[in-house]
C-alpha cells in the first residue's frame, strides 16, 4: 500500500516541470492568451517528443500505455503554469475514447502529434451529469443540434459527439459543422459552441461506453486544478514572507497565517481525494472509479477556486493586477469550477450514488 508517487514518477515530474519552465512557464500562456488556438506547433511537437500525447495510448499505436496516475503528474504540472492547449481534451479525452472504440489509425495520429481531437458532450439547458442521455438528434447518421462547452474544438480534427443514437465520430471539416468560440474569463482555456446542421458522422457505439473516459477526464481536470491551487498557495506564502507592512512581514500576522493554514488544509484534503481518484481510474472497478471521480469533481470545483481567491487576498492590491501571476491561477480554477458541471450538480450525482441506495454508507473496509 502506498499513496505516493514512485521515485521514477517523481523524476518524470521533474522532467515535465523543467520542460514547461524552459518553454516560458506562465509567460507562454500570457503570450497565447488571446490566440484562438493557443498551442503552437512547436510546443505540441515538444510535448509529443516528451511522450505526453501518447502517454495513455496503447503500445501498438505507438503509445506508452501509461496510466492515469502518470497522467495526473502531467496535469498537475500543466496546472502549475496554467498551460494552454488541448492536452486535457485530446491526450486524455480523445485518446481514451479512440482506445474504447478501437480507432487505431486515429490513436496513431493523436500519439504522433499530427492531429488532435475532442469530445462534444454538453447541451444547452441540460445538466452535464446527464450527458449519457444526450438529445442531439440523429437521423440516418445525420446530426442536427448544438453542443456547448466543447474544449479545444478549434484546431481539432475530429469530434466525438454524444447523440440520441450513441457516439458519433465527426470530422471538424464536415460540411454543416460550425465552431463558434465561447467567451471565457480564463484565457488559458478554450471552449466553443459547435452547431451541427445536417452533418454526416460515423456511429461508434453507445454513449455509456464513454463513461470511463468521462470519469478520467473529470479527475484529470481536478489534477490540473490541484497543480494550479498548489502554485497559488506557494506564491501567496512567498509573497507573505517578502512583503512588509507596519515594519514586519505580513506573513507574521496571525490573520494571514490562518488564511494560509486554511488553504493548506483545503489543498491537502483535495490532494488526498484526487490521488485516490487517479488510482481508482486504473484499479479496475468502474463503480468505485465513478464514485471517486464524482467526489473529486464536486470537491475540487468548490474548494480549489477558494484557494485561488485567498491567494489573491494575500497579495492585496498586487493580486488584483494583470501583472502578477496569481490572477492566472484564480482564473484557471474558475474554469475548473464551471467546466462540465459545477459542484452542485456533482453533489447531486453523489447523492444518487450514496443516498438513494438500499444499504447506505460504504463503510465496509474489505
Amino acid at each position: 500500500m502506498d499513496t505516493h508517487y514512485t521515485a521514477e514518477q517523481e523524476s518524470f515530474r521533474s522532467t515535465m516541470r523543467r520542460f514547461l519552465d524552459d518553454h516560458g512557464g506562465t509567460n507562454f500562456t500570457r503570450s497565447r492568451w488571446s490566440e484562438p488556438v493557443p498551442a503552437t506547433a512547436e510546443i505540441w511537437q515538444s510535448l509529443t517528443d516528451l511522450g505526453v500525447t501518447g502517454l495513455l495510448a496503447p503500445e501498438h499505436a505507438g503509445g506508452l500505455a501509461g496510466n492515469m496516475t502518470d497522467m495526473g503528474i502531467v496535469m498537475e504540472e500543466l496546472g502549475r503554469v496554467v498551460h494552454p492547449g488541448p492536452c486535457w481534451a485530446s491526450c486524455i479525452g480523445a485518446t481514451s475514447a479512440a482506445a474504447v472504440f478501437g480507432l487505431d489509425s486515429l490513436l496513431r495520429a493523436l500519439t504522433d502529434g499530427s492531429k488532435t481531437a475532442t469530445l462534444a458532450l454538453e447541451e444547452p439547458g441540460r445538466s452535464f451529469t446527464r450527458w449519457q442521455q444526450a438529445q442531439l438528434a440523429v437521423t440516418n447518421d445525420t446530426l442536427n443540434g448544438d453542443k456547448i462547452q466543447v474544449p479545444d474544438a478549434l484546431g481539432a480534427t475530429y469530434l466525438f459527439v454524444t447523440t440520441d443514437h450513441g457516439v458519433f465520430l465527426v470530422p471538424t471539416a464536415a460540411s454543416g459543422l460550425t465552431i463558434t468560440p465561447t467567451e471565457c474569463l480564463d484565457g488559458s482555456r478554450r471552449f466553443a459552441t459547435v452547431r451541427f446542421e445536417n452533418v454526416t458522422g460515423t456511429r461508434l457505439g453507445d454513449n455509456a461506453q464513454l463513461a470511463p473516459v468521462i470519469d478520467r477526464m473529470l479527475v484529470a481536470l481536478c489534477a490540473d486544478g490541484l497543480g494550479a491551487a498548489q502554485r497559488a498557495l506557494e506564491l501567496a506564502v512567498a509573497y507573505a514572507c517578502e512583503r512588509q507592512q507596519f515594519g514586519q512581514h505580513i506573513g507574521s500576522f496571525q490573520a494571514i497565517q490562518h488564511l494560509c493554514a486554511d488553504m493548506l488544509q483545503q489543498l491537502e484534503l483535495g490532494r488526498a481525494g484526487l490521488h485516490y481518484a487517479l488510482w481508482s481510474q486504473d484499479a479496475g472497478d468502474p463503480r468505485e472509479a465513478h464514485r471517486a471521480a464524482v467526489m473529486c469533481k464536486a470537491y475540487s470545483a468548490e474548494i480549489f477556486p477558494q484557494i485561488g481567491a485567498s491567494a489573491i487576498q494575500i497579495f492585496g492590491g498586487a493580486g488584483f493586477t494583470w501583472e502578477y501571476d496569481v490572477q492566472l491561477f484564480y482564473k484557471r480554477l474558475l474554469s475548473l469550477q464551471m467546466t462540465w458541471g459545477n459542484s452542485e450538480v456533482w453533489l447531486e450525482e453523489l447523492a444518487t450514488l450514496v443516498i438513494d441506495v438500499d444499504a447506505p454508507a460504504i463503510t465496509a473496509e474489505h
Partner: protein
Amino acid sequence: MDYRYPPDTLPFRREVRQWLQDNLDEELIGQSNRGSLTVEQLDALRRWNRKLADAGYAAISWPAEYGGRAAGVMEQVVLAEEMQRADAPSALNPIGLANIAPSIMTWGTEEQKRTLLPRMRRGDDIWCQGFSEPDAGSDLASLRCRAVFDGNDFIVNGQKVWNTLGHFADYCQLLVRTDPDVPKHQGITCLLVDMHLPGITVKPLTTLTGAEEFAEIFFTDVRVPKSALLGPINQGWQVAMTTLSNERAGVANLHLGVRKKIARLIQAAQERKVEGKPVSQDPVVRQRLARTYLYGEYQKALADVCIAGELNGRPPGAESSITKQSWSDIEHMIAETSASVLGEEAHRGSWGDNRLYSRATSIAGGTTQINKNIIARRVLGLPKA
C-alpha cells in the same frame, strides 16, 4: 500508487473479527467510554478491557516486553476498523496507552515500567493526565502547579483541570513547576502520582452536555515520593512530549467514527418523512448530506496518506498536520447536517449529545487556532511575529 491493504493483513483481520464475535457481550455493544459513566458501567468496561488485554488486543502497538505485540501500522488500523465494525468499546486508558505509556517506556525506571505498564494495559489502574490548569490551556508551558523537593518527597500544591477520567483515576501523569526562575519550558517536571495520596481532592467537572467527563484536581501539600519522578527533574516537558514512533495509525479512528455517524444520518434521511416524502429527497438536505459524506470519505483518503507514510517509512508531512482539524471540521459539519436531516430529533438523545459534543473537537487536544499557528510556521515556513 496502490491503495489496497497489503494481503498479509487479511489473516489478522479474520482473527480479530472472529475473536470479537466470540467475546463481545451484547450489553457492551455500542457502550461509549465517553461521557458520564456509572460505577457499574465502569466495572463492565474494566472487565472488557481485561479480556482485550489478555487476548493481546489492548495495546498491540506496544513492544512485546510490555505485553504488546509490536504491531505495525496496518495491524493497528485493521484492529481499529474491526473494533468499530463490531461497535466494541475501546480500552479504558486511551490516553494512557497512547500518550503516557510512551513516556514511561522511554524515561521510566525498571520498577516503574514493571509495576505500572501491565496494570495500565489491563485497565486495572485508570490513568489521567494532569497537564492543563485554569490559567495554562493553549499556553500549557506556563503551568504553575508547584512541586518542591525536600530530599525525599515532592511537595505538590496547585490545581489541574480538564482531567479526562480524573474522578475515576488511580494514577496521574502530572506536570509540575519545579524551577520558576528559568524559561518556562525548562522548569517543568513530570511525576507519576498515585491519586489516592492524602491531600488530593478531585471534583468532577460538568461539561455543557451535562456529563461528568472531566475533573478538576486540587493538590494541597501532597507528599509525592521520589520514586514517582519520571525522567530527569526539570525535563518534564520533553518527557511528556515523548511519543511512539508508530503512532500514526490513530488517525484511522477519526474517519471511522465520522463515517459511521454519516451512514446513520443517511439512513435517517431515508426513513424520516416530511409532508409524506423522505427527507433524503429534499434537494437542500441532499446537498448538505452529500457534502458531509464527501468530507467523511476525504478524511479517510487523508488518513490513508498518513498511514501509507508510516508504512513506507516517510516522516509525517503536511497531511499529518491537518488531520486533526479537518476531522474537527467534519464533526462540526455532521452536527449541523444532523439538524437538517433530523429536525427536532437532532436535539434529543445521542444526536443532541453529539451536536453539543462536536464543539469540543476544535478545542480539546489543541485548539484549531493553535494548530493553525503551528501549521503556518512549521509546515508553511511563515515568519514569527
